[in-house]
């Protein structure tokens, strides 16, 4: 049985439903990310789980108990905020000790647990500092320590890394994953950054307009988005609307007017639903008009409109009869603007979405 489950939950704000008939399950020990653009309802979901918001309808079950009406301060969930939300008037030590003292622990035990937790987040020696005297990364680690030291039944993160600079963000997400695994703590993590979500999660839920569009392992979502929305959100930059499809041995044959394409069929049907073809800019291949091109079908001819240098690769906008396609390709001798090229769609990479 799932540790956490939201059942037909509805949340409204200003007479407008943010979540409606919302369902979500999470197993013990897992890290689930809620991923989506701002306004998709991911933070609302998190705040509902935390108890900062009340559901208009539906039920929130946790560890077999009805938590719908349990107030925040009785839930024993750790929450890490985007703004860190440290107590500005307390030292690092007192910040971390806050939850333990409320639990009436003996000061000796408080000290033991705070010290150990500051070790886990590598902040030994910072006990007497005030939050104002710490860097962003250090503050976030204090916030994590403060949430973890109470041994919460559930850990909640609300965009914890978005105020940090890029390098620190990568280090911190590795830290978060390490600590989460070390303590085996069930976690819900909200972010709008797909790389962040994919890199640390067991499960990712891609959300749109208050609904979960797809909930799956990061690799599954990354390779086989379940809808056009998810595909767009996670970087499938190219789409073709097909008019017909039929099974053809190990492939699916797709048609658009006189054009024929093939997409690889998969046993579990992942990436095989619907009539819209989607492919990443990285997965398209460009060829000059050389005669010995040894690919059959799945090509379009076009003209390079724009060529942009991205550092590791070039990005091309190629005008074809089916519109403009974006292609990223590493090469020493890049195509020039106006050059005739052939765009090749590898059938294993061409994914179908409803």
């Amino acid at each position, binding site marked *: 049985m799932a540790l956490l489950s939201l059942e037909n939950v509805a949340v409204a704000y200003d007479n407008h439903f943010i979540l409606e008939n919302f369902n979500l399950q999470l197993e013990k020990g897992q890290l689930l990310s809620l991923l989506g653009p701002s306004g998709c309802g991911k933070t609302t979901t998190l705040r509902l789980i935390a108890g900062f918001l009340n559901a208009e309808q539906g039920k929130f079950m946790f560890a077999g108990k009805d938590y719908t009406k349990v107030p*925040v301060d009785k839930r024993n969930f750790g929450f890490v*905020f985007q703004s860190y939300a*440290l*107590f500005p008037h307390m030292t690092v030590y007192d910040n971390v000790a*806050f*939850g333990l003292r409320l639990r009436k622990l003996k000061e000796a035990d408080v000290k033991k647990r705070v010290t150990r937790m500051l070790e886990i987040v590598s902040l030994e020696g910072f006990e007497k500092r005030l939050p104002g005297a710490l860097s962003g990364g250090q503050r976030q680690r204090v916030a994590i320590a403060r949430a973890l030291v109470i041994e919460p039944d559930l850990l909640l993160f609300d965009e914890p890394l978005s105020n940090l600079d890029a390098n620190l963000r990568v280090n911190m997400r590795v830290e978060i994953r390490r600590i989460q695994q070390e303590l085996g703590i069930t976690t819900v993590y909200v972010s709008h950054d797909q790389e962040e979500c994919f890199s640390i999660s067991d499960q990712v839920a891609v959300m749109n307009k208050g609904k979960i569009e797809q909930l799956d392992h990061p690799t599954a979502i990354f390779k086989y988005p379940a809808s056009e929305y998810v595909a767009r959100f996670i970087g499938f930059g190219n789409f073709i609307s097909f008019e017909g499809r039929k099974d053809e041995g190990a492939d699916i044959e797709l048609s658009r007017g006189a054009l024929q394409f093939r997409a690889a069929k998969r046993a579990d049907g992942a990436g095989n639903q619907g009539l819209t073809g989607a492919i990443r800019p990285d997965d398209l291949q460009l060829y000059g008009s050389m005669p010995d091109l040894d690919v059959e079908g799945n090509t379009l001819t076009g003209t390079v409109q724009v060529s942009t240098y991205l550092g590791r690769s070039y990005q091309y906008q190629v005008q074809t009869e089916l519109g403009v396609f974006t292609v990223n390709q590493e090469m020493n001798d890049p195509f020039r603007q106006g050059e005739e090229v052939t765009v090749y769609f590898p059938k294993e990479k061409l994914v179908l979405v409803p």
Partner: protein
Amino acid sequence: MKENSRVLSLYTLLVFIFLLGPLVIISVTSFEPGTVLKFPPEGFSLRWYKNIFEVSMFMETFKTSIIVSMLGNLLALLLGVPAAYALSRFKFRGRDTLNALFLSPVLIPGIVLGFTLLRYLIVVYGLPIYTGLLIGHTVIMLPFIIRVIASSLQNFDFAVEEAAQSLGASRLYTFFKVVLPNIRSGILAAILIAFLESFNNVDISVFMTGPGVSTLPIQMLTYVQNYFDPTIAAISVILMVLTAALMFIIERLMGFAYFTKR
């Protein structure tokens, strides 16, 4: 450029003389040894400073002023802190209206407010003068308390409050242990500003004082109507020093920028 800045300096100097000149003259004349206010004074004496302490009505009204300002301050805090908190923390219908209502005593001319309070508290409801005076001063202090504390709360990240609750703290515990300590200087500044506003108030007090109950500013008004000696100048100097000291503390606590920004 050089020429311009010299003209500007001169202009600024003139403005300062215009503003501070009368205060300097009052201060100087307060040391007059004679019985009539004169400038320049004919000597130096602390005679009129001593007189303040010898005229019992000054000491009595000073005591009344202090008590009314302090008690009223306490009442205004009890009403104002929760109000400021609610106005800053929650979004609810009618919040802007309520905000405007709380600030309205500053917008209504004091004389109108004073007359209205007299008409209702004393004439219609027959409250004792002292009680009426206290209520009047609470009313004029409330907007300052709310305004200053609300602006102090504006810099407070309410996620901090949520953090405390998620760690197991009740709303009340959070308010006293987390919110209050972080707006302490704002509250202190609010107390001092409201105190000055109340202590120096004339337009409300003039309606709300009566036989046997008066505040220091009202007593001073009455005194200058009958006497021309430098006692009032001496009191003025003492009040100026007191006010300047309080303003200095307020400035140290919050900085004046706090009041110029909205």
